């Protein structure tokens, strides 16, 4: 197994609210996209989630662990804010801290457990058959992604995508935050000419629809080649930044933090 990953902040902004992590011993990749528009401490919550969740043995256990994390995180922030009062404290207590979450764990016998909550993207791409398994659907291109919020007493189990799949040597595992995920998913839809889903996305009349419209006027798309170009760009932060900026300037990536991990299985 070989992997590359990079995470960069929005153009012109020093603050990156995404975070990813690889738990070597557990062979578990995690990624979280902190929602800066909800509450405060988005980055800290993304870090907490990715660095603590390292076992996808069962969905019930993951949810239990997330609930424990919420309580610890909230209590730590509560103590901090009580010691350092400012006019942001009420925003944390009222709105919490929120993020999406992805997890991918390689187990024995070529099994892969995939988990997601929200609109970050996780893909298992079978290079030989060009078949893509992903958590993403056209529903994820709407305006209200699901988020794990640290001040919610419950986490909606129904909001999780959780699958166990078998992988083969040469398959590619991809974890990415939403802007990159949506672009990759669109490239795949164009590659396999899934006009039905593309029409649905055009009908949403949102920022993603704008990207679909631009792509309609471009040359054909090759998903394998696109993944390989991204993989190449991940060698350094500078090359990844340059590649993402190029796509952004063409109007193909939304303005956001960009995080991408590609694993060759």
């Amino acid at each position, binding site marked *: 197994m070989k992997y590359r990953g990079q995470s960069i902040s*929005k153009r*012109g*902004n020093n*603050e990156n609210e995404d975070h990813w992590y690889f738990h070597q011993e557990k062979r578990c990749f995690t990624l979280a996209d902190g929602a*800066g*528009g909800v509450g*405060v401490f988005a980055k800290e919550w993304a870090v907490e989630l990715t660095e603590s969740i390292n076992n996808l043995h069962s969905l019930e256990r993951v949810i239990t662990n997330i*609930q424990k994390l*919420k*309580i610890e995180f*909230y209590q730590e922030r*509560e103590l901090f804010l009580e010691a350092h009062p*400012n*006019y*942001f*404290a*009420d*925003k944390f*207590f*009222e709105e919490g801290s929120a993020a999406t979450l992805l997890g991918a764990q390689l187990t024995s016998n070529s099994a892969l457990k995939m988990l997601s909550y929200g609109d970050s993207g996780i893909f298992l791409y079978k290079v030989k058959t060009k078949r893509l398994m992903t958590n993403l659907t056209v529903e994820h291109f709407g*305006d*209200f992604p699901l988020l794990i919020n*640290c*001040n*919610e*007493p419950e986490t909606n189990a129904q909001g999780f995508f959780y699958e166990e799949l078998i992988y083969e040597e040469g398959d590619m595992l991809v974890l990415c935050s939403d802007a990159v995920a949506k672009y990759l998913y669109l490239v795949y839809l164009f590659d396999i000419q899934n006009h039905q889903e593309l029409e649905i996305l055009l009908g*949403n*009349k*949102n*920022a993603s*629809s*704008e990207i679909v*419209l631009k792509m309609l006027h471009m040359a054909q798309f090759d998903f394998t080649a696109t993944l390989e170009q991204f993989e190449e760009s991940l060698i350094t932060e500078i090359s990844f930044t340059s590649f993402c900026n190029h796509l952004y300037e063409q109007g193909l990536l*939304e*303005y*956001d933090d960009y995080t991408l991990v590609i694993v060759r299985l």
Partner: protein
Amino acid sequence: MSELIYTGNQLPSKHMSNFDEMLTKVLRKPQKDFPHTQRITRDHPTSFVFLIDQSYSMNQYASGSDETTMAEFLANVINQTLNEMIDRCKKGTELRDYFHICLIGYGGDEDDTAKILWEGNLSGKVFVTPSELIDNYLGKSTTFVESKRPDGSVKQIEKTVFEWVEPKSVFRTPMLQAFRLAHDLLVQWIHEHPESYPPTVINITDGMATDGSPDELLDAANSLRELHTEDGNVLVFNIHTSNSADNSVFFPCTKSELVEQDEYAALLFDMSSDLPSNYNKHISNFTKKDIVGAYTAMVVNAPISKMISLLNVGTNTNAIKHS
């Protein structure tokens, strides 16, 4: 933010030599294929203009109260809305100026004009940012709210509520002037922010205009709605409030949902914008009904007690990710 031209009671269009040129440039700008999708950021802030009826009839007691007038209720609601807009701009450990806010009152004094309402240190300003608001309030009070902890227990939070608007209910209803003033100020604002998420104008009134015919009002609203950034047209909300909860209509999709022969409601409908789909979920949450189609940004006979929820819909930026 550079200062816009506002010459007291006079419309900028009548006093600025380059106004027509500015207006032509604004109207000529092309728009995106999928408008109302621009992210709201510090580089691309958006603006809100509140048109606030301060006419004598707002002196009535609000429905269900014998202590609070509609004017007092409305002032309180505007202040609460401004506090919430400031909250939305809190990010990390800083306050980010995502919004430029203008308050225009009409009927609040006897010269029968529309005026910008900022007072104290903000007097003379046109659009004000959240950081300017929080440093220049007229008054403040403390309130307590409850929120849940993740362990299910309840936390009481002490919140400071700042105030900038005081209640007024003085004279007639020069709503036409308010629309025209909003138009002229937004021409200037859009000229400076051509790529931003389009401005939102929210008109709150309890009655009909006294300074213009229905046709003149419709023209003024159309002129306002014609203004656009590259990201789409200015959105105009008309919220009519009343002590009678009868025949309330919230965000209709078509005119057929209005009470027949209610010409005033029909006028408000024509004066209001068709809302883009980003508002659908918020309206559906407000009306507690499934999304049925494209909504119109108008409400008629709304009880004043619903005003804060209505303004939450009108100032909705939740669908737009902030940076």
